């Protein structure tokens, strides 16, 4: 549980060696660049690297191309090639792909046209007339289409216009499919009448032959086009599979050249020299130094973070095993700054513990761990790795509360064999106790957060905060005293309340209230208060908020106990429903459904609630999370 130590390295040398230096930085994979201008504070006549990156557009092109052929970009090592050669090869592949897609588009058009023709003609299958002759006749016009069933009934009674005749060929629930015919001179009027009757026209192909013949020929054409499309797809696939290595080589070359340009933007030029600055983990310094030594004419120098206080070193978290998985939650809140405590291990332990208590069930815990394993192994989901320890903790606490898939007495034989009368904790009979214990757990965690705040403040050399802060020693004394007074009155303890109130409550409140002026006095600085009235008003409200937060943060942990009760209550409800099913398959299904429902809904709720406790009740006391994530440069496929 720590933040890894960093060194700031400065690389200087002849400007002609900049490419080599950048290349070496990329190869080591541990260099986190920093703008060199930030350290050249004593120089004014340096210039920044201002060349336009000619590879960003090329990278975009090849990325788009890879998208089109549905290949994921891959780095296959750096193989030097001339820029022109890379361009020519890429252009050829893009042109080939354009040609393939053109052919595909034509075939798809053909398939669509034939499918539509077949679908339309099938309504007129029984028509035994050559379509071409019918649709190209000179003196009569033929309209194919569909007419609503009601309109067809209306038309039967229409006698005014002799051409308003509809010849149906097929019928479905709502429409008659058929045609009407009229002389060219009368077609406009007949069209108008049919339009009033909701007729919807279908434009049939003017192929030679009867609909049946045309359907057959179109179906043949359709089969051929589909086969051609399949063959073309195979062809395209094998073509790009054969050339995949070449394509990835071009991609790797362009990606590396692009990254080189991006790193150069951090460099500065002074006369004929360059300067490149960045951070590397202390443990990798010798490896980095060896790599840079291979280049003639450049110099490497390093500083510790304390020597460059105006720069913020990036944070590289150093956690092992299960703890590492919980970096996901810490990064979600914010990376710790270089001088802060890394809270990952604390989160890992407290999150797992709280989750286990709130979702205590042997069977459901095992299921949750297995789901986590599946998510991690097969879906590569970070959350899956966190679910595994949480599921195990649920199983452990399931034994404490004696619950197995909601069966509250299934584990009794186990307890009897261990010499116990029954389960260690009977949830529904110990409801008040569970809530009290959960508040007690909250008190412990809040005190832990205050301790971490004191350590973190000392680490950051902020003694005023460590001693007088509301999360410092004064705050902790105040919080403990308040607990003592309140707890003592509940338990009817005979305490020297007056002394505790003065030493443990009034005095810490005064110290917290005057934290800033006292801090100035300790540092032999002039007290910095702009307005006395503003100072008192601001600190009064701040003090009010601090006292309120002690209360709300503590009571917030009641949710731990509440979820223990909810979990048990929900399972009881499903068991009552299962009982109503009257036994058999219905009961079994209800129990399975209840378990699935509780695992999904409550698992999610508990996960969120515990995270809330971590972030609001604990992190807010000792953690800023305003660091910069360590991101070393390396050629990566994006």
């Amino acid at each position: 549980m720590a933040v890894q130590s960093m060194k700031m390295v400065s690389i200087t040398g002849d400007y002609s060696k900049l490419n080599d230096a950048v290349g070496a930085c990329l190869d080591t994979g541990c260099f986190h660049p920093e703008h060199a201008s930030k350290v050249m504070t004593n120089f004014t006549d340096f210039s920044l690297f201002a060349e336009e990156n000619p590879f960003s557009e090329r990278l975009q092109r090849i990325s788009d191309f890879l998208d089109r052929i549905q290949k994921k970009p891959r780095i296959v090592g750096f193989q030097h090639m001339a820029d022109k050669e890379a361009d020519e090869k890429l252009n050829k592949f893009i042109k080939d792909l354009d040609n393939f897609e053109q052919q595909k588009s034509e075939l798809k058009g053909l398939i669509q046209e034939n499918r539509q023709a077949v679908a339309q003609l099938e309504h007129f299958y029984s028509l035994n007339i050559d379509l071409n002759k019918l649709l190209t006749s000179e003196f009569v016009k033929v309209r194919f289409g569909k007419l609503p069933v009601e309109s067809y009934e209306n038309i039967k009674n229409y006698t005014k216009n002799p051409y308003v005749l509809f010849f149906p060929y097929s019928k479905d629930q709502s429409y008659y499919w058929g045609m009407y015919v009229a002389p060219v001179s009368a077609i406009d009027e007949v069209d108008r009448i049919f339009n009033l009757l909701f007729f919807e026209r279908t434009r049939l192909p003017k192929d030679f032959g009867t609909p049946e013949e045309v359907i057959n020929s179109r179906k043949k054409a359709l089969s051929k086009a589909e086969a051609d499309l399949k063959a073309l797809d195979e062809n395209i696939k094998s073509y790009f599979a054969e050339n995949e290595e070449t394509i990835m080589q071009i991609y790797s070359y362009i990606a590396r050249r692009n990254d080189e340009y991006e790193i150069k933007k951090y460099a500065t030029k002074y006369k004929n020299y360059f300067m490149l600055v960045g951070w590397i983990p202390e443990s990798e310094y010798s490896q980095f130094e060896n790599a840079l030594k291979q280049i003639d004419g450049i110099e490497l120098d390093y500083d510790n973070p304390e020597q460059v206080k105006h720069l913020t070193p990036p944070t590289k978290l150093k956690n092992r095993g299960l703890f590492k998985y919980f970096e996901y939650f810490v990064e979600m809140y914010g990376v710790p700054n270089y001088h802060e405590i890394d809270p990952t291990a604390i989160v890992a332990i407290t999150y797992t513990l709280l989750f286990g208590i709130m979702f205590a069930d042997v069977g459901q815990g095992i299921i949750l761990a297995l789901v986590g394993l599946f998510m991690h192994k097969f879906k590569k989901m970070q959350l899956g790795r966190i679910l595994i320890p949480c599921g195990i903790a649920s199983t452990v606490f399931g034994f404490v509360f004696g619950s197995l898939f909601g069966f509250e007495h299934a584990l009794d034989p186990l307890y009897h064999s261990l010499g116990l009368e029954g389960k260690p904790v009977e949830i529904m009979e110990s409801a008040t106790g569970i809530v009290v214990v959960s508040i007690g757990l909250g008190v412990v965690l809040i005190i832990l957060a205050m301790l971490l705040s004191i350590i973190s403040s000392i680490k950051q050399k902020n003694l005023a905060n460590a001693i007088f802060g509301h999360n410092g020693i004064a705050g902790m004394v105040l919080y403990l005293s308040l607990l003592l007074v309140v707890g003592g009155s509940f338990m009817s303890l005979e305490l020297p309340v007056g002394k505790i109130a003065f030493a443990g409550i009034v005095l810490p409140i005064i110290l917290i209230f005057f934290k800033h002026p006292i801090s100035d006095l300790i540092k032999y600085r002039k007290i910095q208060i702009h307005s006395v009235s503003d100072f008192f008003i601001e600190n009064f409200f701040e003090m009010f908020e601090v006292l309120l937060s002690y209360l709300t943060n503590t009571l917030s942990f009641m949710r731990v106990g509440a979820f223990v009760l909810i979990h048990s209550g929900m399972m009881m409800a499903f068991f009552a429903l299962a009982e109503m099913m009257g036994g058999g398959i219905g009961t079994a299904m209800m129990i399975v459904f209840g378990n699935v429902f509780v695992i999904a809904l409550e698992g999610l709720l508990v996960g969120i609630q515990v995270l809330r406790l971590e972030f609001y009740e604990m992190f807010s006391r000792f953690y800023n999370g305003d660091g910069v994530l360590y991101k070393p440069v390396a050629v990566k496929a994006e």
Partner: protein
Amino acid sequence: MQLSSAAAYSIIPIIRAKYGIRLSLRDYDELIKLKTVAEVVAYLKNRTHYSKVLKGISETSLHRGNLEKLINKNQLNEILRICRFEKTVGEHLFSYVVSQAEIEELLKFARFLAAGHPEDYILDASHAINSFSHIDFMKLASIHTFPEFFDFIRHTKFKTVLKDQVDDIQSLDFPRFEAALFRKLYSDTFKIINTEFPAAARTLLKSLFALKVELNDILLIYRAKRFYNLDPASINKLVTGIRYLLSEKMLKRMVNAESPDEILKILNSSKYKKFIRLYGFENPELFKNHVLQHQAERLIKISINPPVVMACFIILTEIEKENLTSLIEGVRYRLSQEEIKKMLVLTRKAGD
């Protein structure tokens, strides 16, 4: 009708839910910006409760008249669905809706017949009404003369409207025919209200329908004065005689009024004054719908009487249908957005 069953009352939230998905002000604002009927169809199809009735209909090939027919069909289906849900409430009210649609169909044929081309009726015949009515409107296709038409009517429930009609005449006193049909409709409706609904619902239903009839009478008198210059005796034969907010004396004054302006003056001294102040009387047709919408919207929100809530829903769907018909006409004839908006009866709903 027994309204004690839970089912009868459960229709109320269902109707209110249906009422909740009506076209909103935002929908109308979007619709009046559209340039073509095809765009209107596309909007209704994709973004409103008309999607079901317009499903599978090609936006580009749909004629304005056909769109209106589909909207009518949708309205009838919506009301039928509600009425069928709770038959004890819905059956009688649906018979009112069907009778009204039947009258419109008969009047439509009468217009074709009067114009000399009854054959064309069949092209404009409603598809929707055939599914609900006991009258076989397809038979009208073979009718070419008024005596044949009267004979047709004599075989329907509307036979009583012909008691003053002489068989051998070759033309029709259209206003009297129309008035007789509607008089028959409302007399049947009030009879049903008096016999089939409980007292609490009866009063509100009667007031709602009486308001509708009275507004129709006001509109009729106004038109007779403004466009046809009819004498008081002729107008008296057309009005229904059912009163709600107007007294008999006031109605008589309106019938005897010298000019349309005098009618407005009389209305301004009646209980309609507040509605004139709210909605104006520049367009009497719109005024009628505004007043009806005002009352129906109020009752649909507060009433706990299933028949009243259902009747309000019927009135409000009719107004939405008329709004859409006006909007489609406005878009078709390229009226400006302001002109179209003036033709609509709009109210705000939650979310507008």
